[in-house]
């Protein structure tokens, strides 16, 4: 966590931590209006992320190597520019919106904590 706080200070980001019974939500707010939420298990594993804001965040940063799976799944579909949802066995990514207003979320079915459903990732 120290590195998070260091980076938070370095980049002047605002971060809030919301404790829930079975998980923790880390909210990171940018002054361009972007809001990122990370959903973290008690063991410190991130099982979901969501985003809302004027542009799409860098998914290579946000999803790591899972972005390659997401992009591969998306590119197997036709380019349509509108909302897209990938529901693979483990990885789920939903992205929607338009110029000035995007939102999306991603989660791993295998990493949802016991008793927690995907609905919490918003």
């Amino acid at each position, binding site marked *: 966590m120290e*590195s*998070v706080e260091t980076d*938070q200070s370095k980049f002047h980001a605002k971060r809030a931590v919301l404790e829930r019974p079975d998980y923790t939500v880390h909210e990171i707010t940018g*002054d361009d209006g972007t809001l990122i939420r*990370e959903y973290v298990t008690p063991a*410190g594993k991130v099982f979901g992320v969501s985003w809302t804001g004027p542009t799409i965040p860098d998914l290579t940063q946000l*999803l790591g190597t899972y972005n390659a799976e997401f*992009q591969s799944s998306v590119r197997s579909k036709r380019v349509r520019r509108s*909302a897209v949802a990938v529901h693979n066995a483990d990885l789920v990514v939903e992205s929607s919106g338009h110029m000035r*207003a995007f939102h999306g979320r991603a989660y791993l079915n295998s990493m949802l904590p016991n008793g927690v459903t995907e609905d919490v990732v918003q």
Partner: protein
Amino acid sequence: MSGRFIGLGGWHDSAVAGVTAVLLLTLAACSGGSSSTGTSGSTGVTTTTPTPVNNVQPVIMDYGPLVNGQYVGFNNVLYTTVTICVPGTTTCQSIDHVLVDTGSTGLRIPASLVTLNLPFMTDASNNPIGNCVQYADTTYQWGPIVKVDVQMAGEVASSVPIQIAGPTNFAAVPASCSAGGTPAQTVTDLGANGLLGVGLFRQDCGSACAVGTPRAVYFTCPASGCVATSVSLTAQLQNPVWLFPQDNNGLSIILPQVGATGAVSLSGSMIFGIGTQTDNALGGAQAQAADDVGTFTTTFNGIAYPGSFIDSGSDGYFFLNSTITGLPNCASNSDADGFYCPTSPVSFTAINTGPNPKGSGVAVSTNVAFSIANALPLIDSTSVVFNNIGGPNPGSFDWGLPFFLGRTVFIGIEGQSSSAGTGPYWAY
């Protein structure tokens, strides 16, 4: 550089490393606030009455542009022909099958199609400016900005900044623009010879890109690489309609209805101006304001979904999810992946609500009825125009091209006034 998320290897890696929240924004300055609407009023008070010009621009839906003898169009795409000219000259080219997109702002043409010799716009340091547009499916278009005169019907917008998408002689796309997504800027990628963004706004980004923390929309591009930057409103991509000398307060799109099995083609009109000539009166249309990002609230089964929008560039009704709608998703390995595939058509009604654009404070609500059929046989048919295909869009409604069929839809541009009030507003 701001507007990027900096992580420590992504969410899965952070789990391995035992580090939790690893995503941070680079934030260089205080907020510039939200996009302004209407602060500068309408485009100018004139003391002379301009001579009316032809304000009716034909629009079509068909199999799209030809590439190497193959039609490359998609389903439910609305096209028009745009003429662009070297500013102030008669050196022009006409580009057919440009997608008419009410979900974006500005004209974007694939570099391969541009035959005019047009210098790239530069900033005060003489560095070229790059423009980025992202789409919900994480595709993007990236390229320099040039100025052209834009001609449609009898209307001319002079010296309009437009994007040249994907030229080879321009800087590489910045990571905050591509954002891990995929370029979609060739004719085949787009199913169109460009995009004409004639949405609710004057500029693609507006005041949020003119002051404050730069967004990943405009970039200054010295040889060392592109960096996000603020640019003035006049240097941004523009909705050409508001730059017309007349008929510039908005537009309407008029399309006929189609039957349950769709149509192979369709013809309609895009009429410039609202209540400015005898052919563009509002009539009984109900006007509803949108917010400063172009969204409003749609209520479905008693639940309000803010963040909903109308977008001629979406190829169906995209709304909520399978659980809420009761509509099964089409098989992910089918041609209809991303759509709903009910065994028989299902009818719905939703309510769109927005403030009165006259500013009276009384919200205006309109019932919208629509039907969703099994998308698979329709998409596999020879038809390309459908009023009854849709798919999931978790959390909101994207009223796509089917919404425009059988309707006259007015688009009131931000800060521009008509008898309906001041934009941004929709009326139908």
